[in-house]
């Protein structure tokens, strides 16, 4: 029997298959045919201090081996989330990490203060410092080493729960930002968020996305994600959660070999939100075939 359990900070997850923020709702609103209890964990969509309508359409467009989105952080806001969503987590059967986004340091802090004032089954927070979709906020934290450090330090002082910083690939040196997060107390980093992209309609000469630019996701991103994870792996000691273009269990293995201790599935959930639960059996089979007892022993083992 292969051990698929993994550890981040003081929390043990039953397996390393998580779902990525913005691709799996709040975890309690996915289609009935999905058995979320099989997943290692769910990262919620980004939650902000106030509710957000999101961007005008068009918000998404298909691209080769991927898609571009610019949803604009449409979400119910933290108060509604606390009242209507959080109670359902006591019976959901998997671990919930709440993704939070803000446009000022205070907004991030206020969300965590509110969440920490209630009792909940949320095991941690993933900090969206890198969402390229919103014109205001987000972006500047993720591209600036000192702002990332300042934000991480403030939020660290507010919670004992897991603090995971989600990194943007749209930077010169992603490992430097990861190091800043580690130094200021992050328990883990997630990498990568979407890559800034664009798609143009040659008939109308307009961008296919209302906000002109959007975030590219899907299999087109996998090589970028793998390279980012490998770079970060050589710079930090905290666990890395690999994200970017995972559609099958062998993609998960690649991310582990590059240095990830867990992964998040994103765009694949739009084709089939039950992909993650099927991957778990496949991972066990792979580990058995290559005679390893624990999936964690694969972390960073790429032969360079």
């Amino acid at each position, binding site marked *: 029997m292969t051990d698929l359990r993994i550890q981040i900070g003081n929390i043990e997850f039953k397996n390393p298959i998580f779902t990525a923020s*913005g*691709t*799996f*709702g709040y975890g309690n*609103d*996915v*289609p*009935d*045919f999905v058995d979320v209890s099989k997943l290692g964990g769910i990262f919620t969509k980004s939650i902000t201090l*106030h*509710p*957000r*309508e*999101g*961007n*005008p*359409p*068009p*918000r*998404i*467009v*298909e*691209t*080769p*081996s*991927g*898609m571009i*989105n610019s*949803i604009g952080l*449409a*979400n*119910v*806001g933290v108060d*509604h989330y606390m009242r209507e969503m959080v109670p359902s987590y006591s019976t959901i059967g998997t671990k919930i990490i709440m993704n939070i986004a803000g446009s000022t340091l205070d907004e991030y802090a206020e969300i965590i203060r509110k969440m920490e004032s209630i009792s909940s089954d949320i095991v941690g927070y993933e900090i969206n410092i890198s969402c390229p979709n919103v014109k205001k906020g987000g972006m500047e934290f993720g591209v600036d080493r000192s702002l990332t450090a300042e934000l991480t330090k403030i939020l660290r002082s507010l919670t004992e729960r897991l603090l995971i910083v989600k990194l943007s690939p749209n930077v010169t040196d992603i490992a430097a930002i990861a190091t800043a997060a580690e130094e200021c107390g992050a328990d883990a980093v997630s990498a990568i968020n979407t890559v800034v992209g664009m798609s143009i309609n040659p008939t109308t000469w307009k961008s296919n996305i209302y906000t002109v630019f959007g975030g590219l996701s*899907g*299999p087109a991103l996998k090589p970028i994600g793998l390279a980012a994870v490998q770079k970060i792996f050589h710079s930090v000691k905290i666990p890395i959660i690999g994200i970017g273009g995972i*559609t099958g269990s062998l993609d998960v293995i690649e991310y582990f070999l590059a240095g990830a201790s867990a992964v998040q599935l994103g*765009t694949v*959930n*739009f*084709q*089939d*939100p*039950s992909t993650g639960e099927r991957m778990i059996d496949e991972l066990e089979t792979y580990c058995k075939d290559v005679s390893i007892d624990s999936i964690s022993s694969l972390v960073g083992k790429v032969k360079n």
Partner: protein
Amino acid sequence: MLIEQCKIIRNEEIAGGIWEMEFSAPGIVSYYTGPGQFLEILLDNKWSFTVRRPMSIANVEEKRITIIYKIFGRGTTLLTESKVGGILDILGPLGNVFSGWQGNYVPILVGGGVGLAPILNLFRECQKHQIHSKLIIGAKTGREHFMDHDPSNGIFLTTDDGTLGNPGTVMPSLKKVCADIDNPMVFACGPLPMLKGMQDFVIQNKIPAQLSVESYMGCGTGLCQGCAIKRRNVKEKAHSYHERYSLVCMDGPVYSASEVSFD
């Protein structure tokens, strides 16, 4: 809702550029609630097409579903190449249904271009319930039509180029049909300019109407939040969610004509 591997029974061109496909889908049929609902079809499993294609259900017969699709781009061209006996990965049924057609109204069913599938489905449903409806189907040109222009039986075809049926868009025919009926209720699906014209007409004339809206879709399950459509006459607030925008996959695709904005 579920994902089912559906065996293709029939896939043929029924008019110029218009195709009809029938497949076996016992699982999806078991959840089907009526005309208006749609499916999300995965075109291949190699990520050449990231997002599933939304397709309205045109007919349900025992455990089989029929769709009607128009060749539109690379994806629908690929769909025409699907062989009988082949398997399609389909998510469904999704969305809400047309309602009110069993009430005290004469249903006027209007379909244009790719939007005729749910309208034909509702037409058959009306026939099954012995409700006398009127059917208006629009196309650019005569070769895109596969039904007969039959005004005495309440079936009106229109063509933009006047090569078959009533010349022009569906609008003049709709106005004429509505003028002859005391209590019409309009049910429509079609391209955006058609829906917009339809909306202006029914609101002005206080005719109850339901419009089935087409939208670019990322998932069909509400997860991606991609298929937003603006609601009509909404008070702008500093902070809100789901008040200014509706998601076609979850709240639609069928809306009351006064509910959504096509601007």
